[in-house]
């Protein structure tokens, strides 16, 4: 690769990534030269400014046409823009949480936390823009490795150590599984570029290897369910969520999960869309039952196990598993609704979950406990915490006039709009939603029906701002979902997702 080629790339399309990379580097350098005792709080604001800058860069790119650089490994299209906005927004809110996190243990590692967070974000953004197995995998690993360290950031906390350890081990296994599956895809098609893989999938020769293809799909899919904490690789979530500091938990449950869905969509949909099945012409159609079983199992495991949790962070871990199950449902709907449904649900999920974690962070810090009883009588003590928390829980449960309801409604549209409709999957989703009422409303009941002692809860101004923003967004998106949907339709043309731009052909023969 000579200088001319390098200069010929339109580097401007990577502006958001460059900003994050630059700020992360800057943070690590500043952290290195800062006095050990001095507060790391300014670093949070710097990191926040970086994320805001990247967000601004994406908004400036909204009109850009599909561009592909670096030999088609990096790709800017509507899909990547739409999901990067979610990733950045989520990280921004997590940063505010982190800046207000009051734990002595984490204090000395604070600087580390901020640039690790940005690195993880960078990995996630790379995944959103990847058009190649290699970059996809590198992005995934960047996100994962940074997350492993962040989970263990409270060095003197045994639980935190345990969670980091469990996370690394199970994450490693998941990575191995994913890579194993990807190796089959590469072996069968001889390409690493997603679009070329898709092209080669139409090769009649592949018809002979239907079983191998099916195997590749199932293995990769299972491996990728790790990041979104869906069955079968969901077991890590409760321990890690419980042990990790609250901002990290929020990051894992929102940003990391979004990234997980990004890679699922990118990799699975593009590469397998043209793949032949064993008996019929389409692999994606043939594997539908398996994906449905995974989605159903995830919903059932998550919701039913959440019923028994007394620890609020564990309860949210299982709730998060359950939510992943809901978002898996659109994967079997095979309609163009797929992207907007997942995008909208993840947007709603971002607000309601980060909002809830903000309150959990405030309460666990004050009461020094993770038990649900810390919510006792919260309505009497601090109605301004109890009321937004109620909205977040209602939204997670999918009750109308909240964003969560509109998200679920959309998922139903996807599942029931087919011919034949997936009634049983919709029924499982509905039944498990009912189960979820019990544990979400239990928290509400504890807040409103029980009396509890305990002081008024003080909320730092940063957290109050996050809380207000999330609560307002949860309600506004519930009442006027068109605000988000119109933004989506107006700025993103999801057909671009499948558009195999000409550049692919011209560069293929170079390597």
């Amino acid at each position: 690769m000579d200088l001319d080629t390098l200069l010929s790339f339109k580097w401007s399309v990577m502006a958001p990534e460059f900003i994050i990379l630059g700020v992360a580097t800057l943070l690590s350098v500043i952290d290195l030269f800062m006095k050990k005792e001095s507060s790391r709080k300014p670093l949070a604001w710097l990191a926040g400014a970086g994320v805001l800058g990247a967000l601004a860069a994406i908004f400036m790119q909204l009109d850009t046409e599909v561009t592909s650089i670096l030999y088609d490994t990096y790709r800017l299209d509507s899909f990547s823009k739409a999901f990067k906005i979610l990733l950045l927004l989520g990280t921004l809110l997590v940063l505010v949480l982190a800046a207000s996190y009051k734990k002595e243990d984490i204090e000395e590692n604070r600087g580390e936390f901020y640039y690790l967070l940005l690195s993880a974000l960078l990995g996630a953004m790379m995944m959103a823009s990847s058009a190649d197995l290699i970059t996809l995998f590198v992005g995934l690993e960047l996100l994962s490795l940074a997350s492993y360290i962040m989970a263990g950031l409270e060095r003197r906390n045994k639980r935190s150590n345990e969670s980091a350890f469990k996370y690394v081990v199970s994450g490693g296994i998941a990575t191995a599984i994913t890579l194993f599956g990807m190796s089959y895809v590469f072996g069968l098609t001889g390409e690493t570029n997603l679009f070329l893989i898709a092209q080669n999938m139409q090769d009649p020769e592949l018809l002979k290897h239907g079983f191998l293809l099916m195997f590749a799909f199932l293995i990769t899919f299972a491996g990728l369910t790790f990041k979104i904490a869906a069955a079968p690789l969901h077991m890590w979530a409760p321990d890690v969520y419980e042990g990790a500091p609250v901002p990290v938990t929020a990051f894992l449950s929102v940003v990391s999960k979004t990234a997980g869905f990004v890679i699922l969509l990118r990799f699975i949909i593009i590469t397998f869309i043209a793949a032949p099945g064993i008996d019929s012409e389409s692999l994606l159609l043939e594997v539908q039952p398996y994906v449905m079983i995974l989605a159903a199992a995830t919903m059932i495991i998550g919701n039913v196990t959440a019923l028994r949790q007394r620890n609020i962070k564990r309860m949210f871990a299982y709730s998060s598993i359950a939510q992943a199950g809901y978002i898996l449902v659109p994967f079997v709907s095979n309609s163009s609704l797929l992207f907007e449904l997942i995008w909208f649900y993840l947007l709603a999920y971002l607000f309601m979950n980060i909002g809830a974690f903000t309150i959990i962070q405030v309460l666990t810090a004050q009461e020094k406990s993770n038990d649900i009883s810390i919510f006792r009588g919260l309505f009497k003590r601090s109605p301004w915490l109890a009321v937004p928390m109620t909205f977040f829980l209602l939204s997670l449960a999918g009750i109308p006039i909240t964003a969560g309801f509109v998200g679920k409604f959309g998922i139903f549209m996807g599942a029931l709009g087919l011919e034949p409709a997936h009634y049983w999957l919709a029924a499982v989703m509905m039944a498990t939603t009912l189960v979820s009422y019990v544990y979400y409303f239990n928290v509400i009941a504890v807040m409103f029906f029980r009396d509890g002692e305990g002081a008024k809860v003080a909320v730092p101004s940063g957290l109050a701002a996050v809380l207000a923003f999330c609560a307002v967004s949860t309600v506004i998106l519930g009442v006027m979902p068109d605000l988000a949907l119109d933004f989506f339709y107006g700025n993103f043309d999801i057909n671009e997702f499948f558009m195999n731009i000409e550049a692919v052909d011209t560069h293929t023969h170079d390597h």
Partner: protein
Amino acid sequence: MNAWLLSILIFSPLLGVLVLMFVPSNDEKSIKWLGVLGTLFPLGIALVVLSAFKMGGEGLQLTEKFSWISYEVFQSKGQVSYPIFYEVGVNGLSMVLILLTAVVSVLAAIASFSIKQNWKSYFILFFLLEMGMLGVFAAQNLFLFFIFFEVTLIPMFFLIGRWGYLEKEKAAYSFLIYNGVGSAILLIVFVTLFMKTGTMNFEQLAYTFSLPQAELNQLFITKGFKMGMLIALLVAFAVKLPVFPLHSWMVRVHVQAPPAIVMIHSGILLKIGAYGVIVFGAGMFPDQFKSLAFIIGLFGVINLLYGAFLALTQTDVKRVLAYSSVSHMGIVLIGLAAGNESGMMGAVFQVVSHGLISALLFFLVGALYERSGSSELSAFGGVAKRMPILAGVFLAGGLASLGLPGMSGFISEFMAFLGLFEKMPVLAAVGTLGLILTAVYVLRAVLAITFGAEKELNETRDLSSSERVPAFVLLAAILFIGIYPAWLSDMLRPTLDAILLGLGG
């Protein structure tokens, strides 16, 4: 003005919420009076709506329609949009139910004077509940209906769970779960219909389903599909109504919830079930509804007899009334099953009449409970001597409940059975047994309380002036409908005629 009238009505309870926000939460007196004022305001607007409503006019009136949410779907046929509108309107049936809601809400707000704590959050939830109920009856599409339907669930959950009696939380949960099952089924049905037809509007859906089968086949709508949808709808609304065997939650709620909330619950919320069966069941799937008529009638008779039998054996007056509600909802089913004009009319009359009567009776039981701290039948006796007005109104309410001519209960039972005797005489004959049982259990309960040996009560003060308002207003309404039913039937006729036309007589 008329263009916005309905929306103003639906959201008018929010004004009460807004005002209450600025009142200190320990100012009991102002909060309670604002609570009543806050329900009088929607009642006033409801009366304005009534005056703007053209009596006997056909179809929808005062309609509003705005684009709200739109989903774009790319399919093989190209881009299809699935728009959801905000659309409200009233016909005779919903006008009647909106009036009932507004009236019962005011009276329940007055009855809420007995609430002992946390008045501010109580009334905020109360207003949200009223908004939900008004919206349910004004909504003209499935999505909006569902949203308002769910909006009634959440405040009810809190109102039962926080202000109820001893086992309030259990009652709140069983309310939530049972009704959650109902709304889960509803949502699946609604989304399926939406995806098949691309519309959520009641009239458009009814029109689509009335198309000839050949055209429907293109939309993948078979007869079996219609039947499946209807059965799912009936099950969902059977939870709400409630129909045996899905009624246990309702008895729990009636026993555990505070009296004012029970007035609302049995007076209006149960009626959403009947409204749903009429509008969605009979209105959208008339042919299928007709073929299920016998089963619906059978469930009606079972409800009637089962509720009456159990009411007969209860020792707690609240449980007597709860089972009496189960029994009386059977009459609604009977009228609907008949599927003719008198049957339909009887069903709707029963909806209104039972709304008033049960509100009155639960209000009086609440007043009795306040005086004695008990609702066991054995705790009372000879109330008529010490509290003549309370006992008198109670007796009158009881007589209305057992269907004494000249009161609203009579008209509804008479018409419902008249309808059923025409179509299914055997079933109707069995059903009349229920009427005898009703007379027995009502008299048993009422007489045990008002006459007999005098029992010691904590307090023997008769109805206070603030308690007399709801009691007398409800009694007057019951008598008014009993004596002059034409006022109600004129309002209802065009709407019911349209549904009957679909049912083919």
